[in-house]
């Protein structure tokens, strides 16, 4: 891939990296402080997190602002574009591995830890002596473990809101692809419509998800505390939801950039990066729907 270039492009100095490091530090330092605070004395930690979080948002604005400006000034040659693309692809790969850790935990718990607690394999003694004849099962019966951590609960029925959410995300994948084709063909109006639809679908998904969480907490007694069932359910869907939130925000930003005419048919890395991200979020959801809700 080492094509011939007249000169290489090396970007100028920037203060954003150090700003980013500082605000990230503030956020996690505040968070750690807050987590360890005695009840009632959490003021300091919360203040620091808030400052850090606002700083992170500001940093993203500032950093992307300068990058977009440079991009519009035509400073990025095709080689830089390729670097950005690779960067985004490998970033998504790292995200896949992050979700992999939680899916791995889910598979392990369902295939090993729960059955072993119920006496499969060589675990017979634990099951007899520690846990009053727990019999292994998943879902509402045994999903919160032999001590029924978090109390009795029921599970979310996959064929209601989750199915709707699946359809929403699948549709949004289609709309974002249509918008991409429109971009390649140079139809700005069509891009705006379909990209706008994608943003709306993302927001609807989030709304449904929030609704589902509320129902789970209030009516099903399915909470983060509901043993490993609750742990895996909320951590997986929660991290996914967080990614949908980010993706929706990024899509919205791209929508404004399209409105401002930042992209043309050959030069639209920002658009593609966000579209890739969106497809990735979509695929994760399909896995969630299958492994967390249905099976």
């Amino acid at each position, binding site marked *: 891939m080492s094509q011939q270039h007249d000169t*290489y492009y090396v970007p*100028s100095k920037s203060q954003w990296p*150090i700003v980013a490091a500082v605000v990230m*530090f503030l956020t996690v330092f505040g968070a750690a402080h807050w987590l360890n605070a005695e009840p009632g004395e959490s003021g300091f930690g919360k203040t620091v997190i808030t400052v850090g979080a606002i700083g992170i948002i500001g940093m993203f604005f500032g950093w992307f602002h300068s990058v977009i400006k440079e991009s519009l000034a035509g400073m990025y040659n095709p*080689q830089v574009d390729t670097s*950005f693309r690779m960067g985004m692809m490998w970033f998504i790969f790292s995200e896949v*591995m992050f979700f992999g*850790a939680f899916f791995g935990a889910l598979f*392990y718990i369902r295939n090993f830890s729960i059955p072993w607690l119920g006496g499969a394999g060589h675990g017979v003694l634990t099951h007899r002596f520690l846990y009053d004849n727990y019999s292994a099962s998943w879902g509402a019966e045994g999903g919160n*473990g032999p001590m029924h951590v978090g109390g009795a609960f029921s599970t979310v029925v996959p064929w209601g809101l989750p199915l709707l959410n699946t359809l929403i995300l699948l549709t949004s994948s289609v709309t974002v692809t249509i918008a991409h084709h429109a971009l390649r063909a140079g139809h700005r109006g069509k891009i705006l419509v379909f990209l706008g639809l994608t943003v709306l679908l993302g927001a609807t998904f989030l709304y449904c998800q929030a609704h589902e969480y509320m129902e789970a907490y209030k009516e099903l007694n399915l909470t983060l505390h509901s043993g490993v069932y609750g742990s895996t359910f909320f951590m997986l869907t929660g991290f996914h939801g967080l990614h949908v939130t980010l993706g929706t925000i990024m899509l919205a930003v791209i929508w404004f950039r399209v409105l401002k005419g930042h992209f043309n048919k050959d030069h639209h890395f920002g658009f593609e990066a966000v579209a890739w991200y969106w497809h990735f979020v979509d695929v994760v959801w399909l896995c969630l729907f299958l492994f967390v809700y249905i099976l």
Partner: protein
Amino acid sequence: MAHEATHDHHDHHHAPQGFFQRWVMSTNHKDIGTLYLIFSLTMFFVGGSFAMVIRAELFKPGLQLVQPAFFNEMTTMHALVMIFGAIMPAFVGLGNWMIPLMIGAPDMALPRMNNLSFWILPFAFTLLLSTLFLPGGGPAGGWTMYPPLSLQSDSLAYVVFAIHLMGISSIMGAINIIATILNMRAPGMDLLKMPVFVWSWLITAFLLIAVMPVLAGAVTMLLTDKYFGTSFFNPHGGGDPVLYQHVFWFFGHPEVYIMILPAFGIISEIVPTFARKPIFGYKAMVYAIASIAFLSFIVWAHHMFAVGLPLGADIFFMYATMLIAVPTGVKVFNWVATMWGGSMTFETPMLFAIAFIILFTIGGFSGLMLALVPADFQYHDTYFVVAHFHYVLVTGAAFAIMAATYYWLPKWTGHMYSEFWGKVHFWCSVVFVNVLFFPQHFLGLAGMPRRIPDYNVAFANFNMISSIGGFLFGASQLIFLGVIVHCVFFSKKKAADRVWESAKGLEWTVPSPAPHHTFEVPPVVHDEELAHGHVND
């Protein structure tokens, strides 16, 4: 500062003015590489001082210097600081400095992200080290942070967030390295002509991106188990503490290769130079690195033989682990074959490289012993394991970093280091490191557990020897510091562009010291300039 995006074409050869601008806002791979290396050296001494506390306490049986809780904090922090603060940043620093020079690129592919990757680290380590001053003390459950022990400490949140930050830094650094290698090579620098060091980093970067997120996931589960009431590792709720070990070691084993593959790359640069022969079996070397990386994903449970895995798992992981010895052996034989019949000279980098080959092999052999399930039942969690990983990490990774420092320091600074003091450093290090770690094999075989501040009097003699070796090895590293400081600030002896007589590769075609900007126009690479330009099958 978006407005000065037009970059300074007029001062190619000197660094920009202004301390803050140059070092904190940098987009220059050499400056950022230097920052990484300085950071790593600092952490090497911080982590080293923790090791001195450990060895001082273990000098005699009984408790004399520190409380057991603090001793445990020291073992935990020593490992975390050395792994994430010393070894890994050193390799990233070397990669930053050398990869663009070796492939004819002007800089890293994403220079600003490069700067961010670095600057996260000092903050992450501030967070980590600050836990030592917390009311409850620092983390004391071992660097592996096994639950439920690790969940008892209030410092957990700080440690987890520090690890998140380090992970973000590593992932961004790795993405940058991959993009640089795949996208920024000068014309003529085909993939199979790249220096082995560059290859080793390409594969290491892949490993980093694949496993750092998994570590992030594992420690996130610790965090939510402690603070948010999840039950991942709590059997009452259907979880399993062993799950943590699986997730952790899925990261952990590739991680140990992350710490050795770039070392393999370094040795593969140095040995041909001082043997005055091209590397033996270039392609085999590259494929060996790739297969080691692949295998590293399917051996993790060899760290868990003693927790009671199903028999089938024990057997699978035992054989898979032993399989790694094959590509590793290929590498060792190829280094030896490269030296065979060469006209060798023994400057300091070569001395460290040869010591690496011999002593790393000892570590590999003890690894093979540990890979045998029935034997590991005996050795697990004893000093034998400690001896094993210090042979691969100190005489392996750290020696390779030292070799690299001596090898490229003249290129970085434009001055020669003192060969005499370099050799003194080498001989002190190589002797004392064995005094330090070799007896630990015997201690482990005799059953001395690791991570315990006191021990049976039967272990007294070997422990005293080991501690003496430890103090002297620690002191020897001050020589290293002295040699570096002397070379950077005081050395009068100018280095030639091609510092070593028969060194090959693009990095030797630029002046010494390497100017602030190199290869702004892609160089045309000729095969005969390259160490591996004429590789056939």
